[in-house]
């Protein structure tokens, strides 16, 4: 069975190469993580002493990732010891670590890319037949029962209508949020002052000007003179919806003659013809259908021409006439059709500042989903690391962590978050995110700690037998997979909870002052007008409800499915 997977012998050289590349990777990771993290600390300490230097942007942005990188690289170091000794467990650990690190480095932009390349290289090395020999068979054996369980879980998920419904809704909402630039009719903070508190389905009372670029070339280089451009334009109903009359704009500017001193005559003409007729005529014939024209010599041509207030077809023509050929003459040419149109209909009405509810909800989806995602991920990462260390190493550290989390739990979530926002001072969505991260991490710390504790008890017996298995390997191969399940359930439901609390905070007034589309703030705006314009609160509330419900359906359903006491085989 194993023959197709591995070779009959191990390739010492390759394995050693992998080991060495790992060491390089580890050192790079420590260097990078250390510089960023301790650099941040240094700036912070200086701040305490009154020196007000602000850390460079890159340090502030990557502070969290650098911490995680440091921790993961530390584990990598321990695994590397095992890899050098060809212990199969260590390879498995490295594999899992690579996956984690890929996720972290992927969020770090260009620098992360370098590390990603290193990771890919190491993975390639790991999967060479000569290196696979050392670990793959055991790894497959270890993971096979887990794979079987996962497949059973997926089967149960498919059978559960609530979970499937939840997943569909979440995908839908995420899709909408990502597609915001294309499916919204208004920008997020756009306010149309004429359209205050309109009911759903109302057309907009305001008009806006649209510039339709028919021709736009930066360097028009007439190689041959005379040279002329022409194009057909159609004035359709779309251009005529408003009272305002459409106009045609010609702009020829930024003339440069270069080395040749040549005089260029620029002539612009508009004919009341369609393209076919234009082509079939001679220049003189065309002149009888001339609608408008303008011309300059050696100067910019910038003119607006009013078009008739009815549908029609025209051809514009732009001529460059010079005494001799020139190859250095260039200009910036554009022809624009400027017309007016109404703002799009307000599908779901507007609020009291004239913001379109429909669009603001979709833009708000971006904000709210981003807050939920970032808060849960950060709280999870931070809490899990602390909880795992606390549970695994026990002793004084564990006691301390327990007391700290106890105190955090003594305060109801909303109250604590409010206090933190006040302490930070700045009222923005970013502050809300940070406050929620601080409020939520104890949940994960306790959860992971509990799991680690119960797993640790089971494993001391095993550890006694499997001599030489280091902490790292036990942590990653055994404890971690069993911890993931409840953490996933908690995280999924927390997406919904965080969403609600964030909306609540912005509702009370802790969000950004005005403007930004965010569901909680939209409800706040609408609460005074609940009786006259209920749509202002109805739609954002529904959005929150549906999204949070979807997350809760999935989380609750998964918990049902994964509960070992309820799983039926």
């Amino acid at each position: 069975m194993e023959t197709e997977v591995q070779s009959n012998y191990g390739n010492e050289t390759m394995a050693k190469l992998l080991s060495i590349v790992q060491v390089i990777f580890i050192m790079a990771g420590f260097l990078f993580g250390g510089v960023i993290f301790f650099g941040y600390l240094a700036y912070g300490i200086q701040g305490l002493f009154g020196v007000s230097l602000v850390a460079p942007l890159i340090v502030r942005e990557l502070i969290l990732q650098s911490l995680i990188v440091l921790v993961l690289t530390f584990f990598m170091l321990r695994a590397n010891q095992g890899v050098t000794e060809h212990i199969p467990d260590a390879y498995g650990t490295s594999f899992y670590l690579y996956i984690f690190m890929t996720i972290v480095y992927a969020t770090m932009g260009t620098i992360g890319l370098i590390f990603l390349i290193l990771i890919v290289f190491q993975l390639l090395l790991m999967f060479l037949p000569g290196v696979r020999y050392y670990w793959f068979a055991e790894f497959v054996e270890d993971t096979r029962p887990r794979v079987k369980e996962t497949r059973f879980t997926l089967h149960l998920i498919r059978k559960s209508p609530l979970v499937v419904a939840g997943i569909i809704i979440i995908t839908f909402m995420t899709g909408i949020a990502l597609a915001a630039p294309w499916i919204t009719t208004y920008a997020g903070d756009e306010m149309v002052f004429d359209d205050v508190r309109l009911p759903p389905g109302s057309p907009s009372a305001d008009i806006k000007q649209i510039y339709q670029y028919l021709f736009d070339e930066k360097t028009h280089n007439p190689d041959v003179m005379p040279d002329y451009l022409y194009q057909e334009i159609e004035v359709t109903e779309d251009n005529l919806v408003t009272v305002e009359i459409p106009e045609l704009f010609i702009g020829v500017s930024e003339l440069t003659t270069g080395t040749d001193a040549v005089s260029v005559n620029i002539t612009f003409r508009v004919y009341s013809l369609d393209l076919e007729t234009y082509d079939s005529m001679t220049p003189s014939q065309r002149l009888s259908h001339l609608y408008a024209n303008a011309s300059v010599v050696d100067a910019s041509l910038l003119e607006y021409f009013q078009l008739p207030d009815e549908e029609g077809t025209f051809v514009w023509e732009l001529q460059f006439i010079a005494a001799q050929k020139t190859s250095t003459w260039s200009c910036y040419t554009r022809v624009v059709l400027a017309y007016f149109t109404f703002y799009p209909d307000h599908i779901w009405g507007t609020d009291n500042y004239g913001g379109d509810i429909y669009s603001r909800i979709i833009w708000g989806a971006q904000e709210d989903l981003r807050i939920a995602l970032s808060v849960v991920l950060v709280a999870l990462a931070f809490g899990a690391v602390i909880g795992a260390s606390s549970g695994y190493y026990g002793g004084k550290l564990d006691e301390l962590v327990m007391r700290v989390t106890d105190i955090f739990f003594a305060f109801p979530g909303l109250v604590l978050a409010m206090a933190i926002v006040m302490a930070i001072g700045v009222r923005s969505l970013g502050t809300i995110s940070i406050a929620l991260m601080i409020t939520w991490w104890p949940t994960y710390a306790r959860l992971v700690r509990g799991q680690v504790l119960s797993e640790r008890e089971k494993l001391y017996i095993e550890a006694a037998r499997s001599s030489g298995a280091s902490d790292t390997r036990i942590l990653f191969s055994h404890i971690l997979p069993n911890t993931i399940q409840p953490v996933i359930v908690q995280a999924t439901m927390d997406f919904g909870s965080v969403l609600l609390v964030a909306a609540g905070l912005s509702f009370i007034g802790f969000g950004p002052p005005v403007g930004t589309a965010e569901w909680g703030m939209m409800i706040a705006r609408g609460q005074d007008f609940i009786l006259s314009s209920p749509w202002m609160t109805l739609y954002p509330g529904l959005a929150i409800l549906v999204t949070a419900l979807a997350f809760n359906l999935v989380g609750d359903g998964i918990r049902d499915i994964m509960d070992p006491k309820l799983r039926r085989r």
Partner: protein
Amino acid sequence: MKLRDFILRRLILAIPVIFGVLTITWFLSYVVGDPLAMYITERTPDEAIPGIIAARGLDEPLVVQYFLYLTALFQGDWGVSTITGADQPVLTVLARLFPATIELSIFAMIIAIVLGIPLGIISATKKDKVADHITRVFALTGVSMPIFWFGLMLKYVLFFQFSQWNLPYLPGGDRYSFRRYDWTPTTGFLLFDSLVFEHNPGLFMDAIIHLIMPGFCLGYITLAIITRMMRSSMLEVIKEDYITLARSKGLSERIVIYKHALRNALIPTVTVIGLAFGGLITGAVLTETIFNWPGLGRWATQSILNSDIAAINGFTLLVAFIFVTANFIVDMIYGVLDPRIRFG
């Protein structure tokens, strides 16, 4: 271990937590704002200020301040709240507003328990059938809704729309129709006062009607939590061996579920109810604003927005105390329900 020792033990364990809360609240208020603001208002004459600073030790090292703060706290001096306009001591304000919030919270909790436990049982006994799915969606909707939105929508439909459609409608706010009834608070608990001191059953009914919407709004979330917890603990309990034994004795399924399973399943649910009390307080903050309920929640929101440090401090402390007390009571009930806990 006797019940008395059990209670004592729990009390003693609660003390460090309370101290932790006190310290952190004090520290936070110190960091967030000017500590002096806790004890003065705009109306305090300038001459009095140095005296106050000396009395509170505000120019002394932090440790002294902390100590003075704690002693003041235990003597009932919790600072002065500015927003109520009359510069009342925080403790007085708390005492006045406390009953309203507690009444509302207890009403909400009753709704949550009375509806939540049966729903959880139904959901568990009919697992994966339609009744289960509907109950779960109903429960999950409760935890997925922003409470302030739910309150607004309730108000809109049950108060406004119903009156538009000429249906009997619920009042849109306040504790009672003060235009129709008179009430001088004795204990502050309207339901109690109206029957015992005012002897006015009409006022009692009126108060109940006013409680319905905010109570349900506030209680829905707890209802959802209780239903889910009840469901999961029932599901676990039903798998236990003693249920098989009960069935083998020839007991009807109804008795097996409602006597043997329920008693055991209630144990973890009761714990959750205690924890949910904290959530109720949080919810009260938002609900009271919407329904114009003269309680702690509304006052808390106003104080936060106006940076009334003393008020915020007082509110946070009170909430933490309520929380610790609720947990303590839950521990007691836990001990009654599960004899194994009692006897060590």
